[in-house]
């Protein structure tokens, strides 16, 4: 019934759409509804104070950001029609579009930019994005000058996607806590789509913003973000055509199955900026794991190819270092730790842990994030089997739910743990946090929970974080990555097999570096 209804509606939409743009064959057409499925439940819709995919996907439709990025990591004008970085790198000047208005009709001024940046700086969990910002000058309503205490090349990326949504000062500036502001559930933004309805855990409905500041866009009439209870029903929904886009598709069996559906396109493009890495983290305070050779030996004992090909159906790429392949800062030359059991055994002998009782050297526990069995639990089970071969007795520690796991790992109460950490575009945002000495913060998940501290790495990362010259920056990161990979506070395994499945009749699917976490104003239905 439902399916027929959807098809009928789609046909009707197609008919009106083709009538409207009859003259421009194979051009972008107006009209149509994008139904996007997800299992991630948004708590609210204000990405200024909340990270995560669930808020970012609707958030980037409702709120515009100063810049946006294409698929080649190049910044593009968005709310800011132009921008310039001062020679000393300590200020960025944004020229805003004159015709940009919020959904309630009020114009966007540099005051809003200054207010938004302060809100994000004070409330967003990614502290490093704007921590060097000293203030924002607003010489005129359309010019905002962001001042930094030191050059901050990550700022350009941090002004795109869901990271710096321009929120209206006249709504949020009323003194209420932005984290619990009532407008977070019915936000007023300036993006291509306007808020219509939000039923937490069920759906979010957005409709075309007719006064959008980019002429002629968006093409779609409506976006519906539909929540599904579990991944199986979500995969079924795209398979049967109940929805027409499924971003952040990760179960490898579903990827393989949906690739066989002729009506769908399945692509792994669009996740370069997110950069999600699946890895095994070591607690370097552990009696055995504080020895670098032990950590390296474990990395050598793991067969990454087996994990990717046998456990993940070949749908995932290898991760070999802190930065995800596909990022301009990825260093290819670093040691890869290709499987070598003899070497691993020799290193453990050398480290002074000979085989003892039952042919075992010592015992370690491994934690894993509950829920995504394929990437976490199964790999942990594999490690138990594999590390036995080098004489390490691994005990799996199951966590009944995510908070339990986060409390253990955040509280440094673990030996080894499987973990998934995102790069978030610029290393300053998503990479530094894992390795800097001063980010060893007990109780904070996804900080430097490994308690890894190397002054040289600290210096390199801090230098790279404020280096304006891209080539020099890349060189600094390359060096830092080589040291980190050699120190092995983490054994890198694979990039999450994120894919987007979308219906063949969708034009201009979101394939930029931010994927579905970017404004979908160019998407149309054929």
């Amino acid at each position: 019934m439902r399916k027929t209804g959807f098809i009928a509606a789609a046909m009707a939409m197609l008919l009106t759409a083709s009538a409207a743009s009859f003259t421009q064959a194979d051009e972008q057409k107006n009209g149509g509804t994008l139904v996007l499925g997800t299992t991630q439940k948004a708590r609210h819709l204000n990405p200024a104070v909340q990270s995560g995919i669930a808020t970012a996907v609707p958030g980037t439709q409702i709120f515009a950001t100063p810049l946006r990025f294409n698929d080649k990591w190049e910044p593009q004008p968005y709310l800011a029609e132009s921008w310039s970085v001062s020679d000393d790198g300590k200020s960025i000047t944004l020229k805003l579009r004159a015709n940009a208005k919020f959904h309630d009709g009020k114009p966007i001024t540099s005051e809003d930019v200054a207010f938004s940046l302060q809100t994000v700086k004070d409330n967003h969990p990614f502290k490093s994005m704007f921590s060097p910002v000293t203030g924002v000058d607003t010489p005129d309503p359309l010019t905002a000058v962001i001042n930094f205490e030191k050059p901050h090349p990550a700022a350009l990326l941090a002004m795109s996607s869901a990271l710096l949504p321009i929120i209206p000062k006249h709504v949020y500036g009323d003194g209420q806590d932005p984290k619990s502001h009532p407008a977070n559930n019915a936000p007023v933004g300036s993006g291509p789509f306007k808020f219509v309805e939000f039923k937490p855990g069920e759906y979010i409905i957005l409709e075309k913003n007719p006064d959008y500041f980019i002429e002629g866009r968006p093409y779609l009439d409506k976006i519906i973000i539909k929540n599904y209870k579990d991944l199986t029903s979500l995969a079924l929904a795209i398979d049967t055509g109940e929805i027409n886009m499924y971003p952040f598709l990760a179960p490898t069996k579903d990827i393989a199955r949906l690739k066989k559906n002729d009506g769908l396109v399945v692509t792994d493009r669009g996740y370069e900026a997110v950069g999600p890495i699946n890895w095994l983290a070591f607690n370097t305070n552990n009696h055995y794991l504080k020895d670098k050779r032990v950590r390296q030996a474990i990395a050598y004992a793991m067969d990454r190819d087996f994990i990717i090909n046998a456990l993940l159906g070949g749908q995932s790429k290898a991760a070999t270092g802190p930065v995800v392949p596909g990022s301009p800062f990825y260093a290819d030359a670093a040691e890869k730790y290709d499987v070598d059991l003899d070497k691993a055994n020799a290193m453990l002998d050398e480290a002074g842990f000979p085989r003892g009782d039952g042919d075992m050297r010592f015992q370690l526990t491994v934690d894993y994030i509950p829920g995504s069995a394929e990437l976490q639990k199964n790999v942990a089970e594999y490690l138990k089997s594999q590390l036995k071969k080098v004489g390490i007795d691994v005990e799996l520690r199951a966590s009944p739910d995510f908070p339990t796991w986060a409390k253990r790992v955040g509280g440094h109460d673990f030996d080894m743990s499987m973990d998934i950490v995102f790069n978030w575009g610029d290393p300053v945002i998503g990479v530094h946090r894992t390795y800097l000495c001063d980010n060893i913060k007990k109780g904070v998940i996804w900080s430097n929970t490994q308690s890894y501290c190397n002054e040289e790495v600290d210096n390199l990362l801090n230098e790279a974080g404020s280096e304006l010259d891209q080539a020099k920056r890349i060189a600094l990161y390359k060096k830092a990555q080589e040291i980190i990979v050699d120190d092995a506070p983490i054994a890198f395994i694979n990039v999450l097999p994120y894919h987007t499945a979308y219906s063949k009749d969708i034009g201009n699917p979101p394939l930029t570096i931010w994927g579905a976490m970017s404004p979908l104003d160019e998407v149309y239905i054929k």
Partner: protein
Amino acid sequence: MAVIESSQDIVQSQSPWREAARAFRQSWAGMLGIFILILVILFTFVGPFFYPVDPFEIIWAPLTPPGATERAPLGTDYLGRDILAGLIHGGPATLYVGLVAGIITITIGILVGAFAGFYRGMVDEFLMRITEFFQVLPALLFAMVLVTLFTPTIYVVSLAIGIVSWPTTARLTRAEFLRIRNLEYVNAARSIGAKNRRIIWRVILPNALAPLIVAATLTVGIAILFEAGLSFLGLGDPNMFSWGLMIGAGREYILDGWWVVTLPGFMIFLTVLGFSLVGDGLNDAFNPKLRER
């Protein structure tokens, strides 16, 4: 001679335990149950000596079907671990959970039921309200909460199952105590000055034991199913191979490899069936009225 023979018959039939044992041997259900249980126990406890494969070891390509390679006669699971080794090594954990949970159930049940049924009055009221509290909680949900609060290890799982399943036993015990406490032989014991403790444990309990043994046997089967349910929901102990864990972890692969879940499922089915049949047989044996029919 004939007189002596018949008097021997009488002596025999007067020992209720021996009579029950004889009746049990005549019950086909009970004997079939015992036979199945012996097979299962032999499989899991003697099996490792004939088939010394580590169930955690990855020995072949993942999801190899049964019979495809000699290394894994019953195929491999989603990691490439031997299913047959898993079935053999999964038995003790499953039986352990069943037995420990069964013992916890019976112990708490008998204690609560005996005191409530014997003392009646306020004690009864108090204990029965507690029992009702546990009885109205959805058992699986409550067990999940317990396992979630603590780390899911095999001990916690056994304890959780025991804690949620005792109310039935307590009610059964209480009913038996209420029935027996005013019978003549109890009054007789009381009149010669036996203490309450003696009356409860030495006079009433042995006479109330028959239905409790039947209940205990069935409880073990139910506890095994419970463990499978918890493991299926991902709340099993990942370091102990149990059949429930194999089903729970393998359920996502049922379309790619039926054997991953079907074979451990069959083992659970056999074991629970065995316990149920034994319970049936014991019921026949202990219930003289049924026996006459």
